[in-house]
């Protein structure tokens, strides 16, 4: 199977879009949970194929975007310490803290490195016993297994100079919080395929039943997304609220059991603050007591963090699906990828950055005739 061509086939995409158009008789609001899905929708222009009555609402599933500012400020403070090698995935480097970002810390002499896996950071710790190697462990359930493995290895080896700044967040509690919000308009969810590849989708039937909301496990390629939307629309039109798997080539009901076992060993569920949204109960992971020695937050006493959010930024409303990026008065004016006021304008998965980068500062009409 050729994943990059067959799942981007224009003719099949138009067929799916036609079926969606024929099926949708009423306006519907469907939220794609994951930032990777948002990015794909905007990059390929999937929303331009859909009937205007059907609205895709962009969800909170961008790990860079929901990491609390206080934690980013803490990361910046730790990264600036002289004994520390601070490791992070690339797209965290440009996320603005209250005063600066990791690129700036690096230019000021901090040892900040982009790694592609937390296991690379473990290797760095092995090779540099006189340095404290800290990994910035952010993300949803998708990135958690590799982070758990890094911590697990470090503990087994007695690698005392490795630690992790953990800010893991979980999808099901976020769906619950969105559905419980009195302002909620979301009528169906496209669940994040990558998250489900780890966690399965056994957590979703109770949510679908309780809130009477269709949940379709959906992938990231254009045809995956259109198929997810097609199934959601069929459910909405027929009044069903079921969990369906439209990403069966990757996702099973149970998910990756060994990964889940390691996750429940290394992490424990905790309340977690989501940037722009607030604290969602039981919505994150922190290191469990057996691994807490590897918690960078406890290892490094950093003080003097004064968190300051931009009063103009409405990324919280964007992440909750309450407004579109273009509805924010600062979008494209005070807030651009060059001068982001909030994380949704930084990460390539952030809805604001996706809108800006792919030209949604043009009106739909301008774009069509471009």
């Amino acid at each position: 199977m050729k994943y990059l061509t067959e799942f981007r086939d224009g003719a099949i995409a138009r067929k799916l879009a036609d079926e969606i158009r024929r099926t949708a008789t009423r306006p519907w609001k469907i939220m794609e949970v994951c930032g990777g899905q948002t990015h794909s929708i905007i990059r390929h222009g999937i929303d331009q194929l859909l009937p205007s009555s059907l609205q895709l609402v962009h969800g909170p599933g961008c790990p860079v975007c929901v990491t609390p500012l206080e934690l980013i400020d803490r990361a910046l403070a730790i990264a600036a310490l002289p004994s520390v090698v601070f490791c992070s995935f690339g797209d965290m480097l440009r996320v603005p803290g209250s005063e600066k970002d990791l690129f700036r810390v690096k230019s000021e002499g901090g040892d900040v490195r982009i790694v592609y896996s937390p296991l690379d950071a473990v290797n760095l710790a092995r090779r540099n016993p006189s340095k404290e190697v800290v990994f910035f462990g952010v993300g949803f359930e998708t990135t958690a297994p590799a982070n758990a493995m890094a911590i697990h290895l470090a503990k087994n080896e007695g690698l005392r100079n490795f630690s992790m700044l953990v800010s893991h967040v979980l999808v099901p509690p976020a769906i619950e919080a969105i559905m419980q919000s009195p302002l909620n308009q979301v009528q169906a969810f496209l669940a994040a395929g990558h998250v489900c590849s780890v966690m399965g989708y056994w957590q979703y039937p109770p949510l679908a039943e309780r809130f009477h909301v269709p949940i379709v496990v959906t992938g990231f390629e254009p045809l995956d997304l259109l198929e997810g939307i097609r199934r959601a629309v069929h459910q909405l039109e027929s009044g069903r609220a079921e969990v369906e798997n439209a990403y069966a080539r990757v996702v099973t009901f149970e998910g990756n059991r060994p990964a889940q076992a390691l996750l429940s060993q290394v992490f424990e569920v905790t309340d977690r603050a989501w940037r722009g949204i607030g604290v969602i109960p039981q919505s994150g992971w922190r290191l469990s007591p057996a691994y807490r020695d590897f918690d960078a937050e406890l290892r490094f006493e950093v003080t003097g963090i004064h968190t300051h959010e931009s009063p103009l930024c409405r990324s919280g409303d964007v992440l909750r699906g309450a407004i579109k990026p273009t509805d924010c008065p600062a979008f494209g004016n005070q807030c651009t990828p060059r001068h982001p006021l909030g994380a949704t304008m930084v990460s390539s998965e952030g809805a604001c950055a996706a809108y800006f980068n792919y030209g949604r500062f043009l009106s739909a009409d301008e774009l069509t005739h471009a």
Partner: protein
Amino acid sequence: MPDAPDFSVWSCPLPLRDYPNIVIGHGGGGKLSAELVEHLFLPAFRNTALADLGDAALLDVPSGRLAFSTDSFVVRPLFFPGGSIGDLSVNGTVNDLAVSGARPLYLSAGFILEEGFPLAELARIVDHMAAAARSAGVTIATGDTKVVEKGHGDGCYINTAGIGVVIDGIDVGPSLARPGDAILVSGFLGDHGMAIMSVREGLEFETAIESDCAPLHEMTAAIFKAAGPAVHAMRDPTRGGLASTLNEIAHASKVGIAIDETALPIRPEVQSACELLGLDPVYVANEGKLVAVVEAAAASAVLEAMRRHPKGRGAAIVGRVTKEHPGLVVARTALGAKRVIPMQIGEQLPRIC
């Protein structure tokens, strides 16, 4: 003229053997510097202009317009699949001259070496430069070497500057694109950037992707011969890739650019590696490709000229210049939708997941 020395079997000749690595003295202007020039640079780059060892090279140039360009090379790692900093430093400047409508003639080469850098590696780099200069038909006419203390450089940095003579009747520039023009690229995009990525520390992945590093002067000459003044703008899409080049042309010419995403020649392995890392191939660097903006009537002749060249087999017509949306590059996606391809802020950053 005797054959240039073969550095692939290079062993350090006396008296360089005294120091297997660069020492501060190699940049000091004294005996060690002189020995480096005499035993390494002169034999490799041999030519009369350099052999005089004057403070400046004295050159004969044909009459007409001169093209003059400079570029610095700080690539890491120094050797990568398909080339090295040596090839890049020559081809980079040769190509800047070639896409400006010039026949490249002379280069300068400035080396900034880090104390401790192995002389054998320097010899390999110099050998690559000499070979690249030969195949581009340019003379490395003047040079300079400085040595910085250990820890203050990345082994070897190279700056080259180049002079060429603009071909008669040719006038190309980024501000000369006109609505209706066709846009062509000369081959597969993103090879160089992904070849470098594949050997970056911490990211090594198994791939057959090689850098496309190559001189373009023959291809540009063939294009100018085929289409002459119908060629309006030409660039080599190096850092920032095709996207940056097209944005620069759209901005400078105050025109819009519309491209068809499905027409972009991208190797499947480059596309896959980009997807894996969350990168967009239109932003990935090339080192042996050019973008040509030509009158629509000349497009097929230019395409043919590109494809006849061994480095141009993947050439394609990818879009057109429009009156609409001046300053913007808009792509039609495989699904038939539209997206804007903006200028990038900095480097592309691999995504979290």
